[in-house]
């Protein structure tokens, strides 16, 4: 098999990350923002696995870190969704801009 160069994975990862950033910054729906965050985390995982495979295939740090990020992402999604549901129950809205009670 002809090797796919490392760059490609990095480009893929960067593209994924940018889509995630865009989603977080541009979307008004809190659920969509959360999804953007998930995309950014996945970009990181792609990055980690690519670097592990190409640079240090004998170690296991890259794999382990990828798993840690997965776990964090899951926890984050759970807490984030719980918050959003809680906000929705109180204010009947999931629009992030409307959650402004802490503003001066």
């Amino acid at each position, binding site marked *: 098999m002809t090797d796919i160069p490392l760059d490609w994975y990095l480009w893929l990862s960067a593209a994924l990350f940018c889509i995630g950033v865009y989603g977080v*910054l541009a979307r008004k729906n809190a659920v969509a*923002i959360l999804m953007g965050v998930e995309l950014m985390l996945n970009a990181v995982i792609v990055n980690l696995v690519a670097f592990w495979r190409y640079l240090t295939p004998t170690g296991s740090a890259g794999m382990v870190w990828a798993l840690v990020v997965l776990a964090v992402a899951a926890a984050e999604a759970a807490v984030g969704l719980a918050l959003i549901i809680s906000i929705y129950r109180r204010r009947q809205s999931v629009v*992030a801009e409307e959650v402004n009670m*802490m*503003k001066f």
Partner: protein
Amino acid sequence: MQLDLQTLTWLIPVPPLLAFFLIVLFTNRSKGLSHTVALLAIFASLALSWTVLFSVIVWPAFGKQVIASAVPWFPVGIAGLTETTAFQMGVLVDPLTAVMLFFVPLTCAMIFLYSVGYQNWGKPRDPRDVPGKPPHYGIEPLYSRFFAYLSLFAFGMLLLCVADNLLLLFIGWEIMGLCSYLLIGFWFAREYDDPKKITPRQAAVKAFMTTRIADVIMLLGVAYLYWETGTLNFREIFYAQDGALLKLLAETPSFVGGLAAAHLIGILLLVGTIGKSAQFPLHTWLPDAMEGPTPVSAMIHAAAMVSAGVYAMIRVFPLFDVPAALGGAGEHAARALGLAAEAAAGHGLSPAGATMATVGAFTALFAATIAVAQNDVKKVLAYSTVSQLGFMLAALGIGGYIAATFHLMTHAFFKALLFLGSGSIIHGVEHGLHHSHEKIDPQDMRFMGGLRTKMPITFWTFVIGGMALAGLPFVTAGFWSKDEILLDAWTHAPVVFYTLAAAALLTAFYTTRQILMVFFGRPRTEAAAHAHESHWTMTVPLVVLSVLAVTAGWLNIPSDFPVFGALAQSLGGDFFFKNIVGKSLLEKPEAIPFHPIPLATSIAVALGGIALGWLVYRNAYAKADSPDPLARLGGLYRWLQNKYYIDEFYDSAFVQPTLALARNVFPFIDRGIIDGLLHLIGRVSLGLGEIIKDYFDVPLVNRTLSDGSGELVKGAGRELRVIQTGRVQQYLVISMAIIMVVGAYVFLMAVR
């Protein structure tokens, strides 16, 4: 043994000082506890003193061997310039101190005990009583304070007795000066209707000021002595190296022409005694000191302060005794000092000794004449004290070391007895006043009479004391000591002898007058009729002292005295006192051979004075306003009654000019210069402050620093709060931008 006695000697003055602080700090509230503390302390001192006294008195070489112990006190000299040595402070018990240790704590203890009754212990507090005024009938409001002062006084006296150097002696001396001020003015709020009558407050100030004048001059003497010898220790100056320092002092000329240093120092120290022991011309404070409570009078006039003056003179007696080694110069000075000195010069007296004899003899006669015409029961005794102290100084001046010491002791006993007795009398009459409500002075003898049957213990003890003072032959202590003085005077200085004989005659006369006026005849007022005997705490000291007023005289019966000498010799007690005390000196004084003339004179003046008093005053006072028999003397009597107008003279010669000067100087110096200066300083500071405030404080500190920083923070907050939008996405944009900038920077740095 030696070490133990030294420690005990150090401890002698301590208990009263402790008592003073205990009373002042802790037991002030409880009157009973206060007098218990004071009494325990003085009896502890008495026990210590007598332990030391009876241990040393049996030493065969007592005198050569003494208790002496000293510790370094403070360094003297200028470091780097002169040699520095430690000034030694210590205690000394030589035979002279031993005598003091015999009678001082004993009389003090008796006075303490007496004060319990005198200040109305056991009676309830009278609501009318005010602190600072004599109580009406109840217990003294400042009871605890009184015992605190008495304790401090006793401390001063005991310190003075055991001191081994002049400086420590002087400290004790000054402590007593302070205490006498506090105690004379004890009833400080007392006022009299008669504005001419001196109040306790004024009397206290007068006593303090008068003795202070004398003390300054005495301190000069102390300083001069130190300058010449480099030490103030009695033993070193007068005893060590066969009196080498004393010889040096006698040979050194002083800066006053013709006087040896020893004699000038002696005269300077003598001035201190003239003040403290109330000799002419500084005697005026002592009669006025009678304004204090009577135990105080006894303390000042018998046990402590005035004795201290004579004691100091006896201490430095060798200064007066060394012959002038400067040839004719000293003799010349002696001639300049008047009659007694001139007579004395022929007998080889030093000019200083002659001065002392002159002052003493003159005062003895002078004060005795005043005492004759006084009506206040305590004033008579006060002048009699002045007179008796004159006797002692006269005796000392002519070289009668033993006679003076002996009279000092016997006088302490019988004069303390007389004062305490007079206090008892006054107490009795005051008690009578509660029944009669008369407006009379309870101290005035004209309002007494007939107290013999009302107050029997006081009567008998007072008579014993009075007879001792008068010198009733053979039985009383006063006779033996006075006889000794007259014998000395007869042998050394006839002029002094005649003067003292006349004084002794007057003494017997006024004592008889006093006893007759107080105790005999019929009560002349209702108050006297209702007088009654005092509390036992007052009569017990009277009895103890009256025993001593008789027996103390037997301590020094001359061996060659007819009948009694042989009797004393057979008991082994002839010259007991002289043999002990004489050892204080390097050369033991010679016993003066017996002479019949002074003895005959002594008996004649005593009996003559008593008889004369009896004849004149037997029936003189039928009523309180009867004229005094001596009023027939006319102008002379008035002079005597007004004490030769010396107080008035001092008032117009010193007090009024001083006041006038003050009044004239006050507007100019005080108001003008001193106040002006002060106001100027005040104004300048105020102006300076105003300027600093306007140009530094307000603009810089207030506006810029404190207000400025506050405003800065507030403004920054106002400006910066707009970026707190509360929108998460905005924050994210900002953080992204920052990350990109930082990332670009890091990337560029890495590339380069």
